[in-house]
């Protein structure tokens, strides 16, 4: 009986911890967003974060998208050729990339790159008192450190996803024409024949949300880190893990909302 109760207690404690975490995250997000709308503004810091999140993530995102497009074309060919539907490959590639794989894979890559870097940087600033030092120098750390990163995340991710979309389609095009013997112009016509604005737009909306999530969890975990090098390491890990899970979960929710019939 006692062991059973202990088990129930442990589950209850976990649920409570989870709720407390979510509550703290929501408050943190609210404060961060609020800081965006009141002066002082830090355009210079937004620019630096944009460079960090957007520009320096270009190579990983580009390579991921290119290979994803290539493998998509190859995989759908082996599947679709069994029932003579090869002409659908172009559509499958472009729709999968713009609606799903572009934003999700870019999100996961950026979370591993930029989200982890944010958590490590803010975490180190926390454990070396630099965040406390900011408040003693008439600067709100939420406004100075968190708000610019949130804004940069929301701006940078859609731009990265545009690049991912183009390179994903290009990857599919390369494999289809060079490897599978498709006619280049037919393939391109097929690509755009079934593509609608909302396919691309939905991907970009997802990208904005994912960008916010990545920056939010990077900052949140870094900001709350405790206890030296180990704490910073733990903050970095949980920034990437929690952002990745949230991206995948929100991807489902957003798809449901955007394409609800």
């Amino acid at each position: 009986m006692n062991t059973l109760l202990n088990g129930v207690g442990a589950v209850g404690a976990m649920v409570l911890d989870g709720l407390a975490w979510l509550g703290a995250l929501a408050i943190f997000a609210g404060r961060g967003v609020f800081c965006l709308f009141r002066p002082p503004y830090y355009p210079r810091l937004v620019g630096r974060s944009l460079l960090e999140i957007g520009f320096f993530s270009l190579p990983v995102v580009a390579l991921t998208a290119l290979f994803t497009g290539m493998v998509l074309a190859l995989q759908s060919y082996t599947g679709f050729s069994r029932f003579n539907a090869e002409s659908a490959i172009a559509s499958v590639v472009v729709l999968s990339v713009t609606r799903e794989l572009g934003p999700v894979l870019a999100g996961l890559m950026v979370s591993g790159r930029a989200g982890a870097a944010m958590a490590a940087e803010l975490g180190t600033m926390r454990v070396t008192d630099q965040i406390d030092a900011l408040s003693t120098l008439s600067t709100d750390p939420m406004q100075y450190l968190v708000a610019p990163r949130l804004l940069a995340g929301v701006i940078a991710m859609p731009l990265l996803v545009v690049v991912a979309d183009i390179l994903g389609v290009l990857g599919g095009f390369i494999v289809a024409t060079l490897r599978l013997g498709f006619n280049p112009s037919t393939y391109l016509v097929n690509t755009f024949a079934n593509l609608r604005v909302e396919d691309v737009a939905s991907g970009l909306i997802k990208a904005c949300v994912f960008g916010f999530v990545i920056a939010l969890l990077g900052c949140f975990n870094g900001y709350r880190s405790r206890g030296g090098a180990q704490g910073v390491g733990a903050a970095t890990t949980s920034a990437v893990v929690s952002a990745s899970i949230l991206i995948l979960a929100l991807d489902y929710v957003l798809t449901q909302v955007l394409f609800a019939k």
Partner: protein
Amino acid sequence: MTTPKIRIRGLKKSFGDKTVLDGVDLDVMPGTAMVVIGGSGTGKSVLIKSILGLVTPDAGSIEIDGENVLTARRARARQLRGQIGMLFQNGALFDSMTVWENVAFALLAERKIRRSQARDKAVSVLATVGLAENVADLSPAELSGGMQKRVALARAIAAEPAIMFFDEPTTGLDPIMGAVIDELIVDCVKRLGSTSIAITHDMASAQRIGDEAAMLFDGKIVWSGPARGLLASDNPYVDQFTHGRSAGPIKMALRR
């Protein structure tokens, strides 16, 4: 009677079931240099972090210029606390910035000067702590511990704060560098006419930089008096602490 610059009454703070501050009363008169001594983990840092607003106390009051910052409106509390300059134990310099950007940080944040003038101002502040212009463009990581401390001091005094806090200013420095830093601290505080609180467990340093002293033990102030009298006090706690005896009323908890 003049109002104390800082007046603390019944300040309490616990972390979980561990009580750190258990009713601290402390007055610091304007222009006075107060040193708070006490062993590691007795809540010295929590005390000044409470005044700075980095830690929220559970109970009690903290008055700056006669106004309670814990109950004041947010903007007013920020204004009152804005008078405080803080020297952190390990400097807490921003490692993503150069030395001069660190020093000019508060001035730029408060929009007191333009960016183009900031470097010149920072160089002149660095000169007051004995650093030449050639360190201005280095990054903090390129400096020795003593130089980092000087830069941190320069950053804390750049906005000419009315109140200065020093968190273990000599810890981690060799005795000579410690004495040099102490001298700079006394110099800066006197020149700016600031009120200061230093926390330390370095007795030599405490006597050099303090006018008044208070000893924190078990979450309370157990003794206060002139810093000069630290070594000759008849208080058993102070006596044991200043002379570094293992026997006495203070029992070190070797295990927690």
